[in-house]
């Protein structure tokens, strides 16, 4: 069955926060850049999937989400603290 919309939305928000924390993802706040944001987020998902040796799809699939939910260190994987 298709994922329940709010669950999907919840996962997307979680993933955004994860990518902001560890993969230097910055979301354009204005809705004018919605398409650009989606591409940018897909790129960051690819970067994270590649780091962890997951299949690089750019999609927020179950395996990618599960990896994001693992307890971990707070240091980013691709950028130091400013």
């Amino acid at each position, binding site marked *: 069955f298709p994922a329940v919309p709010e669950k999907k939305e919840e996962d997307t928000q979680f993933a955004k926060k994860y990518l902001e*924390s560890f993969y230097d993802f910055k979301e354009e706040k204005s809705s004018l850049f919605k398409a650009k944001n989606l591409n940018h987020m897909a790129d960051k998902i690819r970067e994270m999937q590649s*780091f*962890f040796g997951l299949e690089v799809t750019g999609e927020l699939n179950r395996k990618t989400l599960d990896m994001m*939910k693992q*307890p*971990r*260190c*707070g*240091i980013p994987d691709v950028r130091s*603290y400013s």
Partner: protein
Amino acid sequence: TFPYSPKWKKEDVTYRILNYTPDMLQADVEEAIAKAFQLWSSVTPLRFTRVYSGQADIMISFAAGFHGDFYSFDGPGGTLAHAYPPGSGIGGDAHFDEDENWTKFTTYSGYNLFLVAAHELGHSLGLGHSNVFGALMYPIYMAKDTRDYQLHQDDIDGIQALYEPTRTTPSKPPPRPEDCDPHLTFDAITTLRGETLFFKGSYVWRKSPYFSEIEHDTISSFWPSLIGGFDAAYEVDKTDRVLFFKDDQYWAVSGYSIESGFPKPIQSLGFPTSVRKVDAAVHDHNTKKTNFFVGNKYWSFNENTQSMERGYPRKIAADFRGIGHTIDAAFQKNGYFYFFRGSNQYQVDIKKRKLIRTMKSNSWFNC
């Protein structure tokens, strides 16, 4: 490393423990931190000194949520800790999330402080994250056996890129012995889903009925959270389970995955507290009994009732004539037990308990 590879420009680095977690005894916190520093000093010229007041290079603290820097913690799970690269002020400091349950054990009910501290102190010394699964600097927490914990070669390469070792080469694991070395001995041997695995230190020789070549692996390539040096191992094929023994603990695995709730103390199998380690173990598929060899005696364990049989331990020499008094490893195949002591191997008929022949330990390696 971090951008521009910040590092300490000196060999003597100080640290101070600013506060403690209520989850652990203070002495256990101090021991975990000291052990974590030792890991890094063993492969670099760095020396770490603890100070009890004033400013230290590496300030260690426990805090929850917002704690004065721009990286608030997030409650239980998620982010466990973070640390800053070498530098003045907050540089080098390590923060641990007090909302986690900190422990000195490696069970699944909390996070092992030594493992997390060793990772965070890697950052305090200038290391970034590694994507090598099984490396200490891998970003995701993995519960591991922490006794004689060894740094992954990737961690050693990373830290030595920052701090050139001046002393004799770092503690590298001894090289793998040659397959046909006539003096080759083994720590443990077991079958696994039709294959036979021979263990020595952190190395595995994998003999498969499907390929003629012997495959050479390391234990951490199959089970990253298990550290080499098993004492004994055996398979219960009916339950697709292999049990590994090291000192007074044991693990159960099914294929690559370690069953939850392990390691367990070997006393939970019924050994008296006087038994501190198992030398060898072998399961007899026909009788469903497992023989555990300790010193010059052996026990029989009933896998169906999960309990030790009465009338044991018995002397090995009394029931298995001709194989001597102690053994290092054992496995069973095609109706025979194969016992290993030093570089010799003894093939014994299981039913008659009769010695069939003696061979070299590495006779399985097409030498």
